[in-house]
C-alpha cells in the first residue's frame, strides 16, 4: 500500500501515550487539512467492552442474578460431589429409623436432620443425592435442544424458501405433540429408564421452542447491513453463519434456554412422580415426592423437603433467565 501522505504526518498524534480525548486537542498544531482528517480519532471511551462483558458488568450488580447464580452453583457442586454434604447413604434403610421419627435439629446436615422416610432412609441424604438426577437431566436436555433447535432454526431462518418451509412444518408437527404426554408415551415403552433415556425423550420433543426463537432471531439479524457487508466481501455461508449471524442471534435463545431449563427439571420430576421417569433404584426428587404422598398426613416432611428444593431450583433458573434477558436487552443499554 502506498503510504498516504497526510495520515503519516497525523499518525504521531494518535500514537502518543495519552491518545484519549486529548488527541483531538493535540492535533491542530499539525496544520489544518491533517487535523481535519484525524481529529475525529479523539474521544472514544476507555477499554474495549464487548456487549457480553457489558452485560456481565451489569449482572454482577444485580441481586436478581447473583442470588440464583449462587444457588445454582451450590446445586451443581451438590450434584457432582454429593458425598461432601452427607456421610449417610441415601439407600441405607434402617427400619429402626421409622418415618414417624420427625426431623430433629440436633445438628445441621446430620442424617436425622430432616427425618426419615417410610423405609427408614435419611430424607436429607436422599434429597442431596437426588439433586444429580434433576440437574443432569435439566442441563443435558437444555444442551441438546439448544444445539438441535438452534441448528434447525438457523438453517430455516437463514436459507428461507423451501428449506424454511420444510423445517418450519417439521417444527410445527413436533410442536403439535403435547410435551408431557408425548414423553410419557415414549418412556412407557422402555422397561428400564436411565437418566439418558429421560433426557433423550425430553429433548426429542423439547427442541421446537428453541428452533422457533432462533429462526425469528436469525431472520432479524440476517437483514443487518453487516451481513450484507460480509457477503459483499465474498464471505462464505459458513463464515456468515458462524461469525455474523450466530453471535448476534444467540442472546434470545440463551434466555429461552435458561427459562426452559427450569421446565425440564419440572418435567423430570413430574415423570418420576408418575412412575415413568427414572426407574428404581435411581434417586430423584420427583420419585421421592411420589412415594411420600401416601404418607402426607402423618409424615408431611418426607414430601415437603424435596418439594422445597425442587421449587428453589426451578425458581433459580427462571430468575437467572430473566436477569440475563434484562441484561442483554438492547433497549436498556
Amino acid at each position: 500500500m502506498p503510504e498516504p501522505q497526510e495520515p503519516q504526518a497525523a499518525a504521531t498524534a494518535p500514537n502518543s501515550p495519552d491518545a484519549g480525548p486529548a488527541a483531538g486537542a493535540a492535533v491542530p498544531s499539525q496544520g489544518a487539512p491533517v487535523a481535519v482528517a484525524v481529529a475525529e480519532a479523539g474521544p472514544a471511551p476507555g477499554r474495549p467492552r464487548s456487549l457480553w462483558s457489558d452485560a456481565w458488568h451489569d449482572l454482577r450488580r444485580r441481586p436478581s442474578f447473583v442470588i440464583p447464580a449462587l444457588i445454582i452453583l451450590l446445586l451443581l457442586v451438590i450434584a457432582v460431589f454429593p458425598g461432601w454434604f452427607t456421610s449417610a447413604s441415601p439407600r441405607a434403610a434402617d427400619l429402626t429409623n421409622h418415618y414417624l421419627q420427625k426431623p430433629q435439629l440436633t445438628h445441621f446436615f446430620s442424617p436425622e436432620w430432616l427425618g426419615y422416610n417410610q423405609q427408614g432412609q435419611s430424607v436429607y441424604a436422599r434429597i442431596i443425592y437426588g439433586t444429580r438426577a434433576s440437574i443432569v437431566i435439566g442441563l443435558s436436555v437444555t444442551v441438546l435442544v439448544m444445539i438441535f433447535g438452534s441448528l434447525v432454526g438457523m438453517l430455516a431462518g437463514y436459507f428461507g424458501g423451501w428449506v424454511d418451509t420444510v423445517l418450519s412444518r417439521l417444527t410445527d408437527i413436533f410442536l403439535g405433540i403435547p410435551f408431557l404426554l408425548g414423553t410419557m408415551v415414549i418412556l412407557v415403552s422402555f422397561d428400564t429408564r436411565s437418566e439418558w433415556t429421560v433426557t433423550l425423550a425430553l429433548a426429542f420433543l423439547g427442541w421446537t421452542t428453541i428452533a422457533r426463537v432462533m429462526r425469528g432471531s436469525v431472520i432479524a439479524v440476517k437483514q443487518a447491513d453487516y451481513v450484507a457487508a460480509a457477503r459483499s466481501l465474498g464471505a462464505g455461508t459458513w463464515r456468515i453463519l458462524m461469525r455474523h449471524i450466530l453471535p448476534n442471534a444467540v442472546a434470545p435463545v440463551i434466555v429461552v434456554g435458561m427459562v426452559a431449563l427450569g421446565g425440564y427439571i419440572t418435567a423430570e420430576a413430574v415423570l418420576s412422580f408418575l412412575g415413568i421417569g427414572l426407574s428404581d433404584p435411581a434417586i430423584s426428587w420427583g420419585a421421592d415426592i411420589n412415594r411420600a404422598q401416601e404418607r402426607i398426613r402423618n409424615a408431611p416432611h418426607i414430601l415437603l423437603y424435596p418439594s422445597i428444593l425442587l421449587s428453589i431450583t426451578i425458581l433459580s433458573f427462571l430468575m437467572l433467565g430473566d436477569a440475563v434477558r434484562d441484561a442483554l436487552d438492547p433497549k436498556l443499554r
Partner: protein
Amino acid sequence: MSIEMTKAEVPGVPLLEVRDLHVEFHTRDGAAKAVNGVSYTVDAGETLAVLGESGSGKSVTAQTIMGILDTPPGKVTGGQVLFRGEDLLTMSEQERRRVRGDKIAMIFQDALSALNPVLSVGYQLGELFRVHRGMSRREARAKAVELMDRVRIPAAKERVNDYPHQFSGGMRQRIMIAMALALEPDVIIADEPTTALDVTVQAQVMDLLAELQRDFHMGLILITHDLGVVADVADKIAVMYAGRIVENAPVHELYKRPAHPYTRGLLDSIPRLDHKGKELYAIKGLPPSLTAIPSGCAFNPRCTQARDVCRSEIPPLLDVTEPDGTPIGGRTSACHFWKETIHG
C-alpha cells in the same frame, strides 16, 4: 375553519419564553447535562429556528416545554418556561394538560410512530375536539374532514376513515400538522418536521406549515439541523451546541456574518447546490459527550481560534454590535472573541 385573530396578546410579555433552562439525564456514566441554561422567546407570528446537531439539546428543550420529557431519566434542574408570563413548570399536571395541545402543540419527526396505528385518522383528529371541546361524534368527524381539507389532503371526505399506514409519508406529516393545528394553538413546536421526507415532499410540507403559521398568526419553533430549511422559513435563529445557545441572530444576519466560530464552521461545511466549490471546510473533532462537557467554552477543543480564556471561562451570551459600537438588534454570541469572528 374560522380564522380569528383573537389571541390575547399582553404587551411586553413574550408569547413563550424559556428562561435559563437546565435539564439533566441520569445515565450509567453519570449525569448527562443535556440543557445548560437555555433561554429564548417566540412571539405570535414569529418563526424561531433552533439549529443544532444531535445531542445539542434542541429536542430536549422542546420536550420540556411540552411537558413530555421522560422523568426519570430526565430531570429539570432549573429555569422557567413562561407561557404568557405563567410558568408551565410549576403548574399542576392538570393545568398543564389544558395548555398542552390547546395552547402549545407539537409536530414530530416520525409521523408514523406518533399516530396510533389502530385508530383511523378521522377518529384521532376528532378525539381532540371531543375531549377538549366536548363536541359530539358527528361534529368532531365533520371538523376532522375540514382540517384534512385545510392541510390539503386530497379527497379528505373519503379518506377520513383510513388508517395511518394507508397514507404516504408526506400525507401522514400533513395529518400530524392537522392534529397540531386542530385546537388553534398559539405556539407550534415542530421537531425536524421534514427530515424523514423526500425533497419534493419536504418543500410541500414546509410551504404548508409556513402558510398556516401566517394564517393563524402562531408562534412557530422550528427545531432542525438543516441550514437550508432554516434559511427558507425562519425569522430568527438560535444556534445550540452542547446544551447551550451559542448564537442568536435574525436569519439574514446569521448567514451573512456569523458571530460564533461554530456557526461559521457549520455554514462553511455544507456543500453548495449552485456551484461546485473547493474542498469542504470541516469542523475538526466530535461534539462532546454530555457527561463530560469541556470546561470553559464547550466548543473550545474544536475551535480554530481558541485561547486560554476559552478553556477556563464559560463565555456568556454577549451583545453583538457593529464595529463602531452600534447595536445590532437581536444578535448575541457566546464567544469571547465574537468581534474577530464577525468582523474578521
